[in-house]
């Protein structure tokens, strides 16, 4: 069964330290919230087409931790974790999100990026917004760069497929 695509994500950069991601879904907000906060469901969407989620842990309470691990199609692992700071069921989540960069020194707690996620329903459809609040332009830019890196990796893969098919 084909899902009804509700269009692409919209990304804007409201300030030097922020990223805002929005997207409308053809589902009521309690279901979007459920898909966002249930480990078995997160495993089905979080990696997109870039790999498989091998671990999704969510301790959904204020002060609780979450951690996702994905094995990318290229074989390497990507992991993120964070802590819930605010939870309003079906409405709003505030949590930190830290990219576990191998070999990099840990961020100071006050520098950890914070995601503010809101679920707004109208006529059975839900607008999801994810506001990523960082503490510096450098950090914000690094997060946006991560898309470029993943995108380039995909382009390389596509190129390789073409090359193989030509061979």
């Amino acid at each position, binding site marked *: 069964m084909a899902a009804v695509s*509700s269009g692409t994500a919209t990304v804007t950069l409201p300030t030097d330290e922020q990223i805002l991601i929005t997207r409308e879904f053809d589902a009521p907000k309690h279901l979007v919230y459920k898909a966002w906060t249930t480990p078995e469901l997160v495993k089905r969407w979080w990696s997109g087409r870039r790999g498989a989620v091998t671990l999704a842990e969510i301790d959904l309470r204020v002060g609780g931790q979450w951690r996702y691990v994905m094995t990318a199609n290229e074989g390497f692992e990507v992991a993120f974790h964070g802590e819930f700071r605010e939870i309003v069921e079906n409405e709003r989540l505030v949590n930190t999100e830290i990219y576990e960069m191998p070999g990099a020194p840990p961020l100071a707690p006050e520098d950890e990026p914070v995601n503010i996620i809101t679920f707004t329903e109208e006529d059975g459809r839900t607008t999801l917004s994810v506001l990523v609040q960082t503490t510096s332009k450098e950090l914000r830019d690094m997060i946006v760069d991560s*898309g470029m890196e993943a995108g380039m990796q995909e382009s390389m893969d596509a190129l390789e497929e073409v090359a193989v098919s030509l061979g």
Partner: protein
Amino acid sequence: MARAATTADVFNAVAEPRRRQILDVLAGGERPVNDLVPLLGLAQPQVSKHLRVLREVGAVDVREDGRQRLYRLNGHALRPIHDWVKAYEDSWSERFEQLDVVLEDLKQKEQGDGGSE
């Protein structure tokens, strides 16, 4: 992504909030500098300085119109920024497409539980 570390780089030019504000105003149409002064609440020399930086990276074009100079947005110069954000946007779009599939399943299950359909 590698970027030149000079102010003659469109990324740096728009890093300044006031300059982004100028671009927002110019996105609505061509304007003389005198229009920008009250809108931004800055002195004219400061506005002119920001406009100069934006012109250097090609984000803004200027033309003479009688005694005044009219500034306009050149969206083409902002393309690298668009491309940069686009890749990040694409990664979220992919993720959300998968989420659409999960949501369809949840909707069907919910309808099934209701038993009426």
